[in-house]
């Protein structure tokens, strides 16, 4: 504790300046590199676009996560536009200065990969889980093949495939943004796990629920959406959030193919002779960032489980 705060130096231009001031932690390194940790190499003049995206993110998440938000219904409709608006804001074009995605980095990169993965893996996972139980053999075989293949391969391998091998398959001259490839791979990876978690939930739904839905004349998709999935998803919440947290932390693996997430920025900072030897400070800072996000997800999962509790007696 003393090391963390009391004996710590919060300002200074290098490690030596820190140790001259105090014997504890040298947080100055974080202070000096905070922009790098947050935005990566995103051009300083355009950083407002990242900030605006974050504000939009908060305004999108609140109505999705919480029921008691005013005008929730409209907000949910507007939320559909969020991915497109944000993508435009961050990448640019159409009137905004284009920013290459290899300049993305830091927490911003973590959020981009994590939120894209989380946002798309849930619907894809639901479709795969339903596909795996489908009565149509073609759909079933595709779903099982996809899930088992993706689960059988480490994420790192998929990321390598994304960064190198895809180029061999694409016609020469066609370039395919590296970040986009990573986003696709991370999403597919999480989708396979998501599918299995949701399948567990689907299997826990008694046959009588399907029969009651069928006997009313509901279509397959209505029955799934109104009756089966709400119950299956509720059962699956712990597993879903677990997968989300896993995905979010796995975003740090992109360091291996040269993208600079917070961990990558941290390593780069330590390579700077001014700051060598401060690995404890740097990694602790990154760890705290991840812990806060993941703990938030875990708490929300708990909140959701309590809210959806309707089996009061049984």
């Amino acid at each position, binding site marked *: 504790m003393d090391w963390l705060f009391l004996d710590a130096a919060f300002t200074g231009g290098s490690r030596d300046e820190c140790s001259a001031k105090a014997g504890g932690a040298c947080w100055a390194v974080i202070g000096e590199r905070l922009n790098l940790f947050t935005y990566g190499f995103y051009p300083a003049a355009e950083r407002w676009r990242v900030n605006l995206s974050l504000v939009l993110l908060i305004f999108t998440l609140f109505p999705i996560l919480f029921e008691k938000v005013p005008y929730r219904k409209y907000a949910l409709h507007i939320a559909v536009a969020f991915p497109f608006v944000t993508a435009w804001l961050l990448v640019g074009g159409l009137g905004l200065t284009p920013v290459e995605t290899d300049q993305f980095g830091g927490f911003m990169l973590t959020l981009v990969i994590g939120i894209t993965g989380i946002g798309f893996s849930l619907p894809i996972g639901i479709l795969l889980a339903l596909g795996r139980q489908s009565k149509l053999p073609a759909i079933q075989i595709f779903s099982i093949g996809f899930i088992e293949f993706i689960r059988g391969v480490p994420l790192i391998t998929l990321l390598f495939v994304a960064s190198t091998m895809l180029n061999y398959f694409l016609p020469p001259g066609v370039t395919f943004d590296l970040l986009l490839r990573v986003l696709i791979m991370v999403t597919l990876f999480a989708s396979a796990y998501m599918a299995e978690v949701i399948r567990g939930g689907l299997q826990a739904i*008694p046959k*009588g*629920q399907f*029969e*009651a839905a*069928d*006997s*009313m*004349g*509901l*279509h397959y998709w*209505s029955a799934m959406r*109104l*009756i089966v999935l*709400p*119950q299956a998803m*509720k059962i699956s919440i712990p597993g879903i959030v677990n997968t989300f947290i896993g995905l979010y932390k796995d975003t740090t693996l992109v360091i291996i193919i040269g993208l600079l997430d917070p961990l990558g920025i941290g390593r780069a900072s330590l390579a700077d002779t001014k700051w060598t030897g401060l690995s404890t400070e740097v990694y602790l800072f990154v760890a705290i960032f991840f812990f806060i996000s993941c703990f938030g997800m875990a708490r929300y999962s708990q909140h959701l489980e309590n809210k*959806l509790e*309707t*089996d*009061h*007696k*049984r």
Partner: protein
Amino acid sequence: MTQKPESVNEETKSAAGKYAVTMRDVHKWYGKFHALKNINLNVEVGEKIVICGPSGSGKSTLIRCINRLEEHQQGEITVEGIELSHDIKNIEIIRREVGMVFQHFNLFPHLTVLENCTLAPIWVRKMPLAEANAIAMQYLERVKIPEQADKYPGQLSGGQQQRVAIARSLCMKPRILLFDEPTSALDPEMIKEVLDVMIQLASEGITMICVTHEMGFARTVGDRVIFMDNGEIIEENNPDDFFLNPQHERTKLFLSQILNH
């Protein structure tokens, strides 16, 4: 009222219109197991049929073939004049007209009682919410639990849940109601409240096909009792003759077992 099974074969297709349900030479297999054997049955519009028989005799299978929860492999079934086929649209049309009440209620636990009742009218009949709510409340009053409308099924007793399930079926205004042992999963003190609702319904002209061993119910409202064993219809008769004067040995044995119970 009594109809001999053989006479059914002579029915022409056009005559199916005046029946709520017709089954002609229906067979059903589960894999190799022959669950329904040559079933012939005509149910008139408004008729109350009671089906009984030992466990595993095919009673559930028979009524579940009527709304295609189970598929028959041979023979012909018509419901309200429409022949059951593989066409899913056709099946959905029939299911709108045929309500089903299950032994284990099968209410949707994540929805309130009211939402359970309005779900099908809203999504299948495309009814506006306010109208669906009004109709649901009307039927919840009919089954005497309007005050539970905002509770979840898990908060109700078994008898209350089964009455909700009946109200839920009624909200679709079906022409035919199928009951599969609606009181078998209930504690004895709750059976009466459910039977009372069913007896009241029976007086309203809806076609009812009930699998049940409740003799009192069969004798009060039944037009015809059908006895099944081993996947076959063994005997059918009006309730009084059926219970007082059974013809077949297997019927006598079965009746002696449920009477001594």
